[in-house]
């Protein structure tokens, strides 16, 4: 069973071989097949974790830490792996050229980067020591940056440059934090660190190390106020690339942020730091949400919406670090659910935006009147994905919002509840803006003759329905997410 973890890391890389050796047509198909297999593997990991009720563990070459490298999939990792692998596979499908359609062809490099992303993401979700995670984050950045500038336009190159330099700045800070941890404990392995932390209360240098690592991760995740690179990078990239960048790539550093503060840091330390993360999250939701309303281009609007939506995870920290086990578990479930459903809906929205831009030849909002007539499926995908951002039922976003609100209410964190609600209002503004325009009657002669590419819109729609399907999870802590974590949620009474 635990060999699945290694396969999840290595199988995507196998797809590079046909891409390099055979022609692009064969290569693309092979890449798609490999990503589909990868998604199957990730789902298998999830099933194995759920069935056994324990985390899957694997030591590379059979060597346990400190000498070896450990891979471990608990419920949280498995959920993230499943989500990212599904989005990646569907994006590859979306990016394949439609037979006979005039859609721009994605270069083979796109598929190579997608495969690299799949492997790097799985490493980030599975690795058990801080340095391997550093390597995973760097691999992720190296695969993501070229995605931003695939077409080689100057604007894209500039955005990619800013993205790369800021991410590198972040990763050096992260590495400095790793160094401090090593200096104090002589190990970087999560399990051994936890054991050491349980023995003696950590000193200020551990706090400083966590702070440095967190700042680095926040830079890579573009959490407000460190979001300078996100809007131009995500808005400028080709739509298929934007979809993976916004949906999954920024989720890996967020995932690690959660790992650091929820699983590694001692509870008092996490409680002390949580308000800072929450304020950043609130800033993201409010400032980026308002700025999204001011955008005149659709893709920039969606990009700012991403910058705003990751703020909800910041809001999760004080709630998840709360004293009451049930409400903190509920907040944790809500935060994770938000992460996953945002991935589905945001991928759907970027894909839809790409199809709309293909039909119209631009993505200026003012010129998209009547878009529902030429791109009905895309608009539907955008709307249904947006439903989740708005927090309307049934959708994962609604369930996540209710969980966060309930947890905030029960723990007396009123201001967090208010920010969650305000974020919903702003999301309503930027999602409905396009829908209202799309339903309006176009001025004569402004509607293009082209029609959307139906089957690719279908993929976007499928992703959007994925976000809807998550809304059917029960409004209670999801036991699956606690599998393999220090605290179990079974038998928690409200």
């Amino acid at each position, binding site marked *: 069973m635990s060999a699945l973890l290694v396969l999840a890391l290595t199988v995507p890389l196998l797809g590079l071989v046909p891409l390099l050796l055979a022609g692009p047509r064969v290569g693309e198909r092979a890449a798609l097949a490999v990503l589909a297999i990868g998604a199957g593997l990730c789902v298998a990991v999830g099933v194995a974790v759920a069935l056994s009720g324990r985390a899957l563990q694997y030591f590379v070459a059979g060597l346990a830490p400190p000498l070896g490298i450990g891979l471990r999939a608990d419920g949280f990792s498995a959920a993230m792996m499943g989500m990212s692998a599904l989005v990646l596979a569907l994006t590859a499908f979306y990016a394949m050229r439609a037979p006979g359609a005039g859609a721009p062809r994605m270069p083979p490099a796109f598929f190579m980067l997608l495969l690299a992303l799949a492997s790097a993401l799985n490493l980030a979700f599975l690795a058990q020591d801080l340095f391997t995670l550093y390597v995973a984050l760097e691999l992720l950045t190296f695969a993501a940056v070229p995605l931003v500038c695939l077409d080689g336009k100057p604007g894209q190159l500039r955005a990619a440059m800013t993205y790369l330099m*800021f991410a590198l*700045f*972040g990763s050096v*800070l992260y590495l400095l934090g790793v160094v401090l941890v090593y200096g104090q404990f002589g190990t970087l392995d999560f399990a051994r660190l936890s054991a050491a932390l349980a023995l003696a209360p950590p000193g*200020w240098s551990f*706090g*400083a190390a*966590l*702070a*440095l690592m*967190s*700042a*680095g991760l*926040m*830079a890579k995740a573009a959490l*407000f*106020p*460190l*979001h*300078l690179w996100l809007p131009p990078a995500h808005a400028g990239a080709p739509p298929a690339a934007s979809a993976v960048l916004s949906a999954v790539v920024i989720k890996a550093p967020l995932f690690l942020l959660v790992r650091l503060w929820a699983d590694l840091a001692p509870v008092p*330390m996490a409680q*002390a*730091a949580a*308000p*800072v993360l929450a304020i*950043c999250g609130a800033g993201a939701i409010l*400032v*980026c949400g*308002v*700025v999204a309303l*001011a955008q005149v281009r659709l893709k920039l609007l969606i990009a700012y919406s991403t910058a705003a939506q990751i703020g909800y995870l910041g809001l999760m920290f004080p709630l998840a670090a709360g004293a009451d086990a049930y409400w903190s578990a509920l907040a944790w479930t809500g935060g994770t659910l938000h992460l996953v459903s945002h991935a589905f809906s945001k991928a759907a929205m970027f894909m839809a935006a790409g199809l709309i831009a293909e039909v119209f030849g631009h993505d200026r909002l003012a010129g998209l009147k009547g878009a529902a007539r030429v791109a009905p499926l895309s608009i539907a995908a955008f709307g249904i994905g947006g439903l989740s951002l*708005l*927090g*309307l*039922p*049934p959708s994962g976003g609604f369930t996540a*919002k*209710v969980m966060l*609100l*309930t947890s905030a*209410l*029960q723990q007396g964190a009123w201001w967090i*509840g208010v920010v969650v*609600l*305000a974020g*919903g*209002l702003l999301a*309503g*503004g930027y999602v*409905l803006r396009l829908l*209202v325009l799309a*339903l*309006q*009657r176009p001025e004569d002669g402004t509607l293009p003759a082209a029609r959307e590419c139906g089957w690719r819109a279908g993929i976007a729609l499928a992703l959007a329905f994925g976000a809807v399907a998550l809304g*059917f*999870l*029960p*409004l*209670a802590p999801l036991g699956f997410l606690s599998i393999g974590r220090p605290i179990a949620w079974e038998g928690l009474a*409200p």
Partner: protein
Amino acid sequence: MSGFLTTPPLPISVAPEALLLLAIAAPLALALAMLAPGLRRLVPRLLILAPLPALVAAVAVPRGMSVLVAPYPFRFTLALDGSGALLLGGAALLWMAAGAYACAYMRKDPARGAFATWWALTMAGSFAVFLVADVASFYLAYALVSFSAFGLVTHDDTPEARRAGNLYLALTVLGEAFLIAAFVMLASGTSEANPLIRDAVAALPTSPFRSAIVLLLLAGFTLKMGLFPLHVWMPLAHAVAPVPGSAALSGVVVKAGVIGLLRFLPDGVALPGWGEALTAVGIFTAFYGVALGVTQTHPKRALAYSTVSQMGVVGAVIGAALASGLPGAFPIAAFYAVNHMLLKGAMFLVAGLAMASAPARARQAALIAGVLGLSLAGLPFTGGALAKYAIKIVVPDGIAGFLLTLSAVGSALLMARYAVLVTASGKERQTPPGGILLPALALAALALAVPFALFAPVTGLPLAAAFSGDALAKGVWPVALGLALAGLLAWRRWPLPEVPAGDILHAMGPLAALWRHTLDLAVAADARLRRWPVAATALIALAALLAVVAR
């Protein structure tokens, strides 16, 4: 109390549960059928039949019947109670008549398919709000009826319709935020994440968040009902929709707010302070709607303001029930709401008929309009008089009772104005689309007759009680005074400057300026934060801050 509220007139034994589900599923199925090109042509015709299961359910399903459609964790529960059955039945009648009207009225409209889709979705949502019994499903149903109604508002796609639609949408999203906050707080009082509304409301009086919950509920639901100062969208939205759409909006969609209050406020439990506040707001709205409605020069806008005024009356009744804690008062509020639902629907249809007719025909239509108006104002021997009599049970004589009676003067005045506007709305050489006359007449007849059938079961009093000499005298003078005032206005020809629809909205310029300022500020702040030196410094500062707090 017996009859319609506790036992259905025509109880059926075959699958009443399925009927409740079918009531919602039938219009939804029609909306889905629009996706199939082969069925698309059929859908507009079937709109007349779609409300049939809801009507049968309202008449025949045993009261108190509750169905768990989907078990945990999905939990989708339907239930039928007295208030729900009243509103469901009334809504079904209105949807049928308006559907037949729409079918004829929109025959030449190239976008009638889209209209039919929104129509079916709004219908499904409106039936669902009257039927669902758990909190999350109510939120879903409420969102469905609210957001689908946007399609009815903006169907004509004129600049005014777009503006009204945007305002409607913005306030709807705001209302949804109020409600989700209230619902989360409500649910926290129970042991379940998605409790039955009944259980959640039972825990309300002892909830630690009681004030916050009641405030948010009132804000969310009175927004939909159009109570002052949250009424600004209604005159705009109801006036720009196509005629059958206006009838549905003013008749049914606003009742989603009424059922919300009835469902989520405790019946028979006094909430001191809140009841009085709601009564005060309701009574103020009742007069305010009349005052602004009288100045209108378009019959549909006058009707929209009349809806504002009438919903003020309903709000005042519910408020009085809350203030006194009188048990069994809520079905009476629902009864009043049903009376208004049918009358207002018929009035819009008649106004539409007149607007599409030649002047001679319009004058005939105005006659019907006048009769409907008199009923709304509560002239004795009309259905409306029964509704007015019924609410006196909840709001006894006193300041509030007197003011409500006085508001009937206003209603009579406004209705006279409406009839006059209908008279003048015909244009030479035009004939109404065939097929709109019959539904309008049918709904008008139903509106006048249905309250007679419902009065005794709802109030538990014999019909004769409403025809006692005392009751007649109390019913006549407000109408007479209102008509006299209307006559005086017409005779002296006092110039009444027309208040633009949306009234206080136009005083909210500073608010809009503030919003634009916020937008500019946020954009400027974002631009500054996104400069490299600022962001890089922020990164270092954030690391330092985290290190300091996480010591």
